[in-house]
């Protein structure tokens, strides 16, 4: 019950950001919290593999990058329609996810972490080699995705609410998924893969489906990030970024639906707040992460009492 109230409060808080930004005359709040929400989507997509299937992907920044380039590269050629860019990004991520996943999900544990890292690096080096599109220096996107007359993303508030709505939709989808047959099978694989095989489930196929879904969700955050920053760079795909979006659900609590949102928000707000006081905020963040691991094994979200186990 506490968790439901807290989750609703957090989402209401996000929804109130544009109002607060107007009242306090701080328009950059919109960019900051927009970025936080984008990473919430990233963290949710990583947790789709991590929390439910027990697979820790150390290469998810590649899907973030694919989404971002699906906005940037067409825009470079003057194709600004979101109806082209968005299906392109999600479709490309699905294909990439299918190829990478087909090889990766055969492996488990540390080997899975390492092979996803390897693929992440491969995609990163391809992107940094695309000097025509900026490579590591990046490329400014002249126009945001346009959706005919339906939606004007040039308006920062409209873009912010779009990101928030998509984030909430992701939560809804993940919630429905965890209660579906597919979600149950994936959870079963996490707790005992051999038993699921013995029961006749093709576990490989289910893990692959989870991987592709996760890749598609992550690419959406890339589409949004490119629109929010008007910029795309190979730096979106570094292994450091993959690491960052992997630790977000762990900080928040990967056993819960809402944990990744809490983790992403906490991590990015921590950076934002402490970086105003000192350049050396990482020297505080590092030990905080260690303390979270040592004393909050269920993450920040695990601090709240939970009526039904593993709900929300």
């Amino acid at each position: 019950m506490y968790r439901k109230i807290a989750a609703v409060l957090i989402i209401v808080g996000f929804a109130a950001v544009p109002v607060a930004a107007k009242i306090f005359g701080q328009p950059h709040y919109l960019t900051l919290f927009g970025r936080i929400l984008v990473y919430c989507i990233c963290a949710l997509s990583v947790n789709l593999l991590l929390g439910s299937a027990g697979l820790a992907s150390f290469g998810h920044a590649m899907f973030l990058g694919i989404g971002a380039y699906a906005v940037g590269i067409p825009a470079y050629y003057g194709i600004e329609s979101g109806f082209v860019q968005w299906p392109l990004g999600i479709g490309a991520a699905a294909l990439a996810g299918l190829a990478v996943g087909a090889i990766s999900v055969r492996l488990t544990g540390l080997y899975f972490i390492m092979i996803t890292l390897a693929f992440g690096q491969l995609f990163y080096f391809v992107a940094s080699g695309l000097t025509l599109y900026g490579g590591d220096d990046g490329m400014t996107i002249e126009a945001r995705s346009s959706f005919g007359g339906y939606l004007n993303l040039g308006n920062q508030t409209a873009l912010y609410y779009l990101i928030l709505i998509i984030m909430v939709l992701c939560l809804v989808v993940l919630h429905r998924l965890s209660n579906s047959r597919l979600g149950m099978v994936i959870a079963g694989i996490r707790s005992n893969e051999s038993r699921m095989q013995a029961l006749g489930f093709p576990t490989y196929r289910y893990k692959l489906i989870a991987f592709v879904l996760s890749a598609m969700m992550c690419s959406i955050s890339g589409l949004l990030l490119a629109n929010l920053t008007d910029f795309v760079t190979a730096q979106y795909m570094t292994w450091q970024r993959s690491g960052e979006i992997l630790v977000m659900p762990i900080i928040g609590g990967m056993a819960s639906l809402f944990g990744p949102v809490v983790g992403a928000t906490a991590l990015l707000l921590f950076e934002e707040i402490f970086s105003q006081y000192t350049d050396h905020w990482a020297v505080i963040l590092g030990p905080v992460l260690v303390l979270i691991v040592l004393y909050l094994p269920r993450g920040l979200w695990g601090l709240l009492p939970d009526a039904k186990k593993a709900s929300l």
Partner: protein
Amino acid sequence: MTQFATQLLNGLQLGVALFLMSAGLTLVLGIMNFVNLAHGSFFMIAAYVAATTYKYTQSFILSGVAAVASAFAVGIAVETICLRKLYDRDHLAQVLATFGLTLFFNEAVRIIWGPAGIFAAVPPFLSGHLEIVPGLVYPTYRLVVLAVGAVTGIGLYGVIAKTRAGMIVRAGGSDPMMTAAMGINVRTLSAAVFGAGAALAGLAGFMAAPIVAVESGMGDPILILTLVVIVIGGIGSVRGAVLASLVVGVVDTLGRIYIPIAIGSALPRAVSDALSPALTSMLIYLIMTAILIFKPRGLLPASTG
């Protein structure tokens, strides 16, 4: 031909550094099933300490001792203070905690030594060049690094392969449960291996300091390469680490020289300029992916070696 020999020596030198880094890490991973992302920090701390000690004392030997000792001390300290508590936890908890430690150390050196990175001098008596065979001239310092690394590596391999202590370490790497059942205190063993591994990383950092840039975060790229080496070689396998570090070191170095040449001669310049940097950086990851597909437990898995 001369160029090839020079590049081969460079590659071996990278391989030796990678072996010093991976030896400790692969054993801790094998014995305690512990992932330590902070291993690159030991490398970095040693490089900083070495550069600073050399600046004030002008003694190469002293700076080496200080560097290895500092890496050892920091290794033992983090093991005792927090990592020990994480041995029973899953990999993700370990990844997150040691990621936190890396953030801390990267920022701590920035506070202590400033954000810009520092200069590590090559001692005068090693700063010249040697003509190994007529026509093949190679920097003396790099040759010494290669020699020291090779001697340490062979010595380490000898200890691990031939002595009783090494046998216990290998046993711990391939089957920790059974080793514990035979009456070995696996926790003490792991702490010892952890400390030794940190000291070896320190040795690598000390020797790399004059060659690479001494700056915050310098341990991160080498840590990633080390992890690649460990996975290619097989987790917990020292023989695998030897083989994989040399393969990765040589392939990566030679690839950086010869892939651009090969592509440049086959494709138009505009294409090759865009393609070759990406392809050279990708090379070892392609190899690692191929090895994981065909030999998922690495080239020389611990249980057979």
